[in-house]
């Protein structure tokens, strides 16, 4: 890798490391969820699209976790971070670990995530940390295609048959309480935002506008504001993450250090 250069002096390394884990863990867990669809989607094109999206996420995970590894500086590689941490040390959004459900629910989860991801990466293009900005630049091009697709399908299924409409509304109602976490400003966020590394809280207004516009087009009713689950950013997860990790990490746990 050559000599690692640590350019950040204004941001605490541990805080930056946490932020990078959030980005990388969210794409890792959602990428894994999407890969569960491989061979099971309702149409070949959708199967391929889900697998391609999963692949983009795994690639982005490599970028985020490689940088996390470099910032941490303790000799843990990106693979070590992905395969050898337990659930308590994961920082992904709870939304990303929600089970797939039916195809509509997977797409609703995808849209709610993509809308945040797209806006977040857009803001990170201007990050004061050039390494973060470079990853955002790369990933945002891929994510532009993700949001284009998930938004289109949410509209088509929401404004579709009575059956698809009902399922999309149910998916939305079920997933909505997991969206608030995207915008919770923890103490560590504040330091990163102040240093210009992480996106500002104004992201929420943009997300609200994009989601409201899409839901309206999809003839879906935005759920009333209520309790929002949180904890992913602090490693407090739902019971589902452990099962995801059991599958994701099995090989490296059973055969430590096994390479390709």
């Amino acid at each position: 890798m050559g000599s690692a250069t640590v350019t950040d002096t204004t941001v605490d390394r541990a805080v930056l490391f946490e932020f990078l884990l959030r980005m990388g863990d969210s794409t890792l867990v959602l990428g894994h969820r999407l890969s569960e669809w491989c061979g099971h989607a309702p149409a070949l094109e959708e199967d391929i699209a889900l697998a391609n999206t999963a692949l983009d996420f795994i690639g982005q995970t490599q970028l985020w976790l490689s940088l996390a590894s470099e910032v941490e500086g303790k000799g843990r590689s990106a693979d070590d971070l992905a395969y050898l941490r337990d659930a308590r040390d994961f920082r992904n959004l709870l939304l990303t670990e929600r089970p797939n459900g039916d195809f509509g629910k997977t797409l609703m989860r995808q849209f709610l995530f993509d809308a945040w991801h797209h806006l977040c990466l857009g803001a990170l293009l201007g990050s004061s940390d050039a390494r973060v900005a470079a990853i955002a630049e790369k990933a945002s091009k891929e994510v532009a295609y993700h949001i284009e697709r998930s938004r289109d399908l949410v509209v088509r299924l929401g404004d579709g048959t009575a059956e698809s409409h009902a399922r999309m509304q149910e998916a939305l109602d079920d997933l909505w309480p997991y969206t608030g976490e995207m915008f919770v400003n923890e103490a560590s966020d504040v330091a990163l935002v102040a240093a210009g590394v992480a996106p500002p809280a104004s992201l929420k207004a943009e997300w609200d506008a994009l989601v409201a516009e899409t839901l309206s087009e999809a003839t879906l009713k935005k759920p009333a504001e209520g309790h929002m689950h949180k904890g992913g950013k602090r490693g407090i997860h739902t019971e589902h993450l452990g099962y995801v990790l059991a599958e994701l990490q099995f090989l490296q746990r059973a055969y430590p250090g096994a390479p390709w």
Partner: protein
Amino acid sequence: MATATLPSIEDIWEWLAQVPDPEIPVISITDLGIIRDVAWDGDTLVVTVTPTYSGCPATTVINLDIERALKEKGLQRVRLERRLSPAWTTDWISAEGRSKLKTYGIAPPVDGTAADVTLLKRLDRLSGRSSLTVGCPRCGSSRTEKISQFGSTACKASYRCSDCLEPFDYFKCI
């Protein structure tokens, strides 16, 4: 190894132009525009490569192919460096590369949309408010329709020609 006999940078570009893309072997890695720089660092050749898609499985194969090709030409010291920014764009695919793609049956990326990564412009395109004509690589018709934004690899979308009715891959803009 005599230092006076280092191959010229021009020769090295020529050699790299012979390395095929592992997924689409009709085009070379230089046609794709992923080689961003070739330079000598003492007697070590530094090749700077940018990934197409961050999760593209071909990336590792491409790196191995570059090292093998240069070793075959007698270069013992080669270092590959990854450059993320500026991010790869299909605008960097050469004219020759585009022509080869089309002959191979893959519609080349349509110019001018690669930079449109902003959501609103994409949504315009999605809703038909902007025109993007992807020509059929087989019969040349412009009456084509998108089947899926995602195709056989991350870099391609699936299209179908409304005239000759053949399905085809479109190398989508990024």
